[in-house]
């Protein structure tokens, strides 16, 4: 019942989640599988239910080509080794582990026998990208189905071999066992010499979450040992024989045009120099030599005057592009009649909230290694969208996509910030000129300047409320920051919610939780303002206006753990925020301490209650929630990009403050395991309640209402 309430609230379109331009479907002849995989069993997972129905009738087929709409496949080799192919990528969210758990559970093999091949555009099926918390609700489920089908095929092989009914056999620990006759056979023996392919059966019963043995448990990070010994090769660690190091000349300002250039000195010192339109880059045998060559180039640029962060919020209001939205929907949401409801409300309140641009600051900056073999291009790069980067490369070099292979080694995080393929294109362009492999690794300054930012925004909220605490009208206008999480989950009869796209002064794009952070900040802050207006307790006020059972449950669970209602000492403040995003439900309660002399605000304790359906890996889930809160602290308290006239003014770690050990609050996490509800992702939703919880706690401590993110970049007095 509660699940229905949530699913009635549709996933809202989000224009800032950068997408692949043209979805491409992998097409592979079944013989190709065995050519590169060796003999064994292959089970493919098919995207479209109609195709599943057509293709899965016979279960086992020989000779014909495989369906094109594949999103994953699994191979059980003659050695019993299980290899799973998925276009999803590992960026620190630990899906290599959680997906391995899902396969281990259904296929009944130890995790150590499973290898995941991820994000290699030659070997794995097409995937739009790893974003939007989609891996757990989609790929996890698909791989479980694939693994279950493989298990049933193995059981059927054993049944045929022993001439018994498959129903009397059980699969466990990499073997099929006949409990009656006390005999068993290893998967490896069953797959020997086989070349079986199978499409996913439409209705293969999966193991219920309540009966999970491997999934649902905490498991150490797969290949964790490689990470603690420094052996794992991130994209920036890739190396090839004869490789050169590449550097790109950056314009003096955004959108600048090159007016003159002299590359002679750079060529004289032996670098390979490329000047192609506005692109100028060098490649040399060492990074030091490449830096020297770059410094030897003399270039002049011209650019137009551009907006600055000082006038940002004015600018956003004045530069809307309403009506020019190419998607044409998702910009407006109207229910009831807002204006009469506002004028007849006992209390009417209006407030404006703002959100600054912030940077992702993935600790590993963008990196790519490119090499050409004739007209075949191979690129190792850190990206959340290997297939999207393949398209970009094909487009940049005017070659078909099948001449481009992109590989994505598990990378040093992204948080939505690595959807694009700048370094891949740069490295490939330099490699083509140098006729040798070239690696490009961005400096931290380049990453701060030439990547993209979480959109800044202005949000106006107007609300009407009755004396008894019933909200009667809700109007919300969001300028630029995005439409994710813009709709309210509170039950309000009259609503007008509008997103206004703006011509952004900076390049902007996806960021963990997208605009849900901004929209929840405005909404959940305003909920507190309304509660204060009608002199109601914040929790009571929310629950009075909230029917959704799953959300009510997380608010109540967090309140209980937090000890909501307890008395506070001077300087201390308590606040809450929560909501619904990417199918998950979060409530976050924060305790702050404000030093009345220095104005320093310290977040002392954060309690999160989270529910995302059936839990796949509790320890990893806690890790994601804790990480969301720690990363969220930065955007909530002090992170903001400063810019002026096409330049970033604080694009270094010494100038841009990120959360550190000393910022760490006491983190408490309450996990609500709903084994009756399908698992969904957890990398984003847990972040959205933190900023309003802190703002509300600061108000509780001081009576000062802060409506701008970051809340206290210079402490409370200066704010």
């Amino acid at each position, binding site marked *: 019942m509660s699940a229905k309430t949530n699913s009635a609230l549709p996933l809202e379109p989000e224009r800032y989640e950068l997408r692949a331009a043209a979805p491409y479907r992998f097409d592979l002849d079944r013989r190709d599988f065995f050519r590169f995989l060796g003999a064994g069993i292959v089970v493919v997972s098919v995207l479209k239910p109609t195709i599943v129905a057509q293709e899965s009738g016979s279960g086992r087929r020989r000779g014909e080509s495989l369906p094109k709409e594949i999103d994953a496949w699994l191979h059980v080799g003659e050695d019993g080794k299980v290899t799973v192919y998925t276009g999803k990528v590992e960026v*620190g969210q630990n899906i290599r582990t959680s997906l391995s758990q899902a396969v281990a559970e259904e296929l009944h093999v130890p995790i150590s026998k499973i290898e995941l091949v991820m994000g290699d555009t030659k070997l794995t099926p097409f995937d739009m990208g790893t974003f939007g918390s989609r891996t757990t609700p989609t790929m996890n489920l698909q791989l479980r189905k694939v693994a279950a089908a493989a298990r049933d095929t193995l059981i059927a092989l054993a049944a045929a071999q022993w001439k018994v009914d498959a129903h009397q056999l059980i699969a466990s620990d990499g073997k099929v066992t006949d409990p009656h006759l006390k005999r068993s056979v290893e998967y490896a023996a069953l797959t020997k010499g086989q070349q079986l392919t199978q499409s996913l059966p439409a209705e293969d019963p999966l193991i219920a979450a309540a009966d999970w043995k491997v999934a649902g448990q905490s498991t150490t990070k797969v290949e964790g040992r490689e990470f603690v010994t420094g052996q794992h090769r991130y994209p920036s660690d890739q190396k090839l024989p004869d490789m050169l190091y590449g550097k790109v000349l950056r314009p003096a300002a955004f959108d600048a045009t090159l007016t003159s250039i002299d590359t002679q000195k750079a060529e004289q010192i032996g670098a390979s120099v490329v000047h192609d339109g506005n692109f100028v880059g060098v490649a040399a045998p060492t990074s030091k030599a490449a830096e020297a060559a770059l410094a030897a180039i003399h270039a002049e640029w011209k650019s137009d005057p551009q907006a600055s962060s000082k006038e940002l919020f004015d600018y956003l209001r004045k530069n809307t592009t309403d009506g020019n939205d190419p998607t044409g929907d998702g910009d407006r949401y109207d229910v009831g009649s807002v204006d009469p409801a506002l004028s007849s409300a006992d209390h009417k309140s209006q407030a404006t909230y703002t959100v600054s641009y912030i940077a992702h600051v993935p600790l590993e900056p963008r990196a790519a290694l490119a090499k050409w073999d004739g007209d075949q291009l191979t690129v190792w790069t850190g990206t959340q969208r290997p297939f999207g980067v393949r398209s970009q490369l094909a487009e940049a070099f005017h070659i078909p996509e099948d001449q481009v292979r992109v590989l994505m080694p598990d990378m040093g995080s992204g948080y939505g910030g690595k959807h694009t393929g700048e370094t891949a294109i740069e490295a490939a362009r330099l490699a083509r000129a140098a006729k040798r492999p070239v690696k490009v690794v961005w400096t931290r300054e380049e990453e701060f300047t030439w990547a993209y930012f979480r959109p800044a925004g202005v949000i106006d909220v107007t609300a009407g409320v009755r004396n008894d605490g019933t909200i009667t009208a809700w109007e919300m206008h969001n300028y630029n920051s995005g439409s994710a999480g813009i709709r309210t989950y509170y039950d309000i009869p009259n609503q007008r919610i509008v997103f206004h796209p703006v011509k952004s002064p900076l390049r902007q794009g996806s960021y963990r939780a997208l605009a849900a952070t901004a929209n929840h900040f405005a909404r959940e802050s305003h909920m507190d303002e309304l509660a204060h207006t009608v002199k109601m307790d914040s929790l009571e006020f929310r629950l009075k206006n909230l029917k959704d059972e799953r959300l009510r449950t997380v608010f109540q669970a967090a309140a209980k753990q937090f000890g909501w209602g307890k008395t506070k000492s001077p300087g201390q403040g308590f606040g809450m925020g929560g909501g619904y995003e990417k199918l998950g439900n979060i409530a976050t309660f924060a305790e702050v301490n404000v030093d009345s002399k220095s104005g320093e605000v310290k977040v002392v304790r954060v309690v999160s209650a989270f529910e995302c359906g059936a839990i796949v890996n509790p320890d990893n889930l806690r*890790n994601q929630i804790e990480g969301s809160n720690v990363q969220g602290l930065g955007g909530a308290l002090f992170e903001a990009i400063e810019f002026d006239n096409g330049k970033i003014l604080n694009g270094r770690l010494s100038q841009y403050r990120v959360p550190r050990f000393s910022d760490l609050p006491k983190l408490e996490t309450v996990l609500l395991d709903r084994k009756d509800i399908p698992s969904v992702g957890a990398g984003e939703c847990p972040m959205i309640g933190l900023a309003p919880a802190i703002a509300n706690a600061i108000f509780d401590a001081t009576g000062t209402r802060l409506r701008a993110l970051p809340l206290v970049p210079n402490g409370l007095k200066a704010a």
Partner: protein
Amino acid sequence: MATLRLAINGKSYSVDSDPQTSLLTVLRENLDLTGSKYGCGEGMCGACTVLIDGKAQRSCVTRVGSVSDKQITTIEGLAVGEQLHPVQQAFLDAGAMQCGYCTSGMIMSAVALLKKNPSPNESQIVDFMDGNVCRCGTYSRIVSAIQKAATAQGSTMAKGAIR
């Protein structure tokens, strides 16, 4: 360009490099020791942390010419064969990472801390580690991992003392 002798992880290396080049660049480019990471290039994130004569130092702002007569330890030199260093084992057991890019630097800083103070309390850990950034936000797990490693090292040392 000069020929420099470097003592890294108990081995001696001869490297042709400008002495002004950062130690991090030499480790990664000349010696293919890529466990030490580039994060900021100005000593602000700790991803490149190595031990110089047992002390934590940011290799991205350390000139290679200044360490040619010193003992350098990188993340690659911590484990003894298959046996992980107690700090490495503790990070693994505590799940003290997400993407793992900061992990090498975190472990090296933690090893230096435990050399100096074998049983640090939480605020001593926070103070010492504050120069290391984990952008995924696994700080609380790293603190627990360091505490676990301190306990593990303590018990190993106690056993050694009895023997």
